[in-house]
């Protein structure tokens, strides 16, 4: 029986000729990653295993991005414990303030992630790297600890849903609208335990940044991973960012899928997730009047250069509404610099937005943009759960950078075509 792309990678990493859905395997890992919140727990568990060193100094990656620059004393203590651990262990890919950016934008940009790898990260959005044709999934701190000690992890081989992407998207539609549309269609547990495998001629219409955004939110549909084929665009990205060896895997022609869903890009509209679940979606025409207090443009979902460009193009020469605090956060230092060089920073500041250093910050209600009771925020992040960005009575509306920028100007959720 044929294997899906994910199954083929897993079989190879487990040293097996083939695997089937449901099989429990032990697989070798190419990358084990953690952030300041999850590494702080993992390093304690690592010590308990009795291991005295990490399995490979190149393959362990630690990024301090969530509560950094340290937001309070407790966060400072956590970061300090991660820092001490990283230096004691000689971790080569350790990213502290100054080098750090949001992990899921940083790892591909730094060439740490390449096609064909098996990656675990103690952060649920580790599924982002599936955009590069890698098997990549979020795990918890104990798995990270064991991964760092042994270079292996246990997996249950997933079955898959095939998304056949066709058509060409309209100019105001981006990867965010594609994935919000899909989550709205299949639900927050629509792909539970399974892979989301994207194929089809429409993939060529998606930029790498679109694909990162789509793979990033596979977890919001409950998926184990999301994965894209390795095509010309993917190889061009890989060669521009990485020097290490990569491997291209393809699904077998007779691979079995639980179901096949056709996504016609040409039919998609700007899509917004209303509180308090990502699957509570409406297209822009169905939104009605939603007055807002804050806009956040950033995160591992939409803090890349494409996203900054889209927002800058809309905000250039305009003013954000008087009552809307607009916070723009590039995901990495490199994107930050590009925004300076390309003049986007001036566009944002002249429009009345603030432009911050890279951090997760408000995305998880950490710092730099917490909401008060009753406040509403349009955000390009990925979760709108109760209390995600602050008070339990605040509300988060998930949207694309285009919708977020247009909404900042209008003071309410707005269609980018009308700005």
């Amino acid at each position, binding site marked *: 029986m044929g294997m899906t792309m994910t199954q083929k990678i897993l079989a190879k990493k487990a040293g097996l000729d083939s695997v089937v859905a449901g099989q429990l395997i032990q697989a070798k890992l190419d990358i084990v990653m953690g952030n300041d919140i999850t590494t702080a727990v993992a390093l304690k568990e690592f010590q308990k295993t*009795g291991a005295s060193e990490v399995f490979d100094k190149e393959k362990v990656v630690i990024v301090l991005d969530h509560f950094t620059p340290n937001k309070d004393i407790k966060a400072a203590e956590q970061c300090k414990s991660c820092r001490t651990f990283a230096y004691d262990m000689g971790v080569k890919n350790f990213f502290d303030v100054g080098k750090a950016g949001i992990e899921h934008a940083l790892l591909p940009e730094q060439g740490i992630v390449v096609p064909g790898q098996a990656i675990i990260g*103690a952060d649920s959005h580790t599924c982002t790297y599936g955009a590069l044709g890698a098997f990549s999934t979020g*795990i918890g701190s104990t798995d990270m600890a064991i991964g760092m000690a042994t270079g292996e992890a246990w997996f249950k081989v997933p079955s898959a849903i095939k998304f056949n992407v066709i058509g060409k998207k309209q100019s105001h539609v981006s990867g965010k609208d594609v994935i919000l549309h899909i989550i709205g269609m299949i639900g927050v547990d629509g792909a539970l335990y399974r892979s989301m495998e994207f194929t089809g001629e429409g993939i060529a219409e998606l930029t790498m940044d679109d694909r990162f955004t789509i793979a990033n939110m596979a977890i919001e549909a409950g998926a184990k991973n999301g994965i894209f084929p390795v095509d010309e665009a993917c190889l061009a990205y890989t060669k521009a960012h990485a020097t290490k060896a990569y491997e291209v895997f393809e699904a077998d022609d007779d691979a079995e899928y639980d179901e096949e869903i056709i996504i016609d890009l040409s039919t998609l509209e700007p899509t917004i997730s209303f509180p308090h679940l990502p699957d509570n979606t409406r297209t822009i025409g169905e939104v009605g009047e939603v007055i807002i207090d804050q806009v956040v443009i950033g995160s591992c979902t939409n803090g890349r250069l494409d996203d900054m460009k889209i927002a800058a193009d809309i905000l250039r020469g305009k003013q954000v509404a008087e009552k809307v605090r607009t916070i723009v956060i590039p995901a990495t230092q490199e994107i930050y610099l590009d925004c300076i060089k390309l003049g986007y920073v001036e566009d944002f500041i002249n429009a009345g937005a603030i432009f911050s250093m890279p951090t997760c910050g408000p995305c998880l209600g950490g710092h730099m943009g917490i909401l008060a009771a009753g406040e509403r925020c349009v955000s390009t992040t990925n979760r709108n759960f109760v209390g995600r960005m602050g008070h339990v009575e605040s509300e988060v509306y998930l949207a694309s950078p285009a919708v977020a920028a247009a909404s900042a100007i209008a003071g309410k959720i707005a269609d980018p075509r009308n700005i």
Partner: protein
Amino acid sequence: MNAKGMVFKYGDNVDTDVIIPARYLNVSSGEELAKYCMIDIDADFVNKAKTGDIIVATKNFGCGSSREHAPLAIKCAGISCVIATTFARIFYRNAINIGLPILECDEAANDIENGDEVSVDFDSGIITNITKDKTYQAQPFPEFMKAIMAAGGLVEQTKERVKG
């Protein structure tokens, strides 16, 4: 291995942000996290929960973040078992890895009500609703996971391996 206690019942899609909000993630000790367990969905939970009590919920329990702080807070709050229709996969993994017993059983998840007294036999997967005098059959754990749980979690199991 068995569990017995009073049930706290919740609905679909209980996410990790309501189980333990990010504002408390600047600490990593289980005891400290347990003080805020379930705070954004049930502010009274920590005052009412007793050692041995059981959480029952319906679909997709623990969706969202990979924070192991969520199952850890539940375990350290004294909860002996979580029963749900389905679990989000990272939560499922984390619970197994840290040794928090969890069971998937649609019938039990739908039938059991808040405040019911329930007991669980992990070997057989039989859940007994003492209040309603009913039993439900959950899938028992595969051997692979039983071994992790029996060792006291993945770290304990790996210790043996590291020693070689």
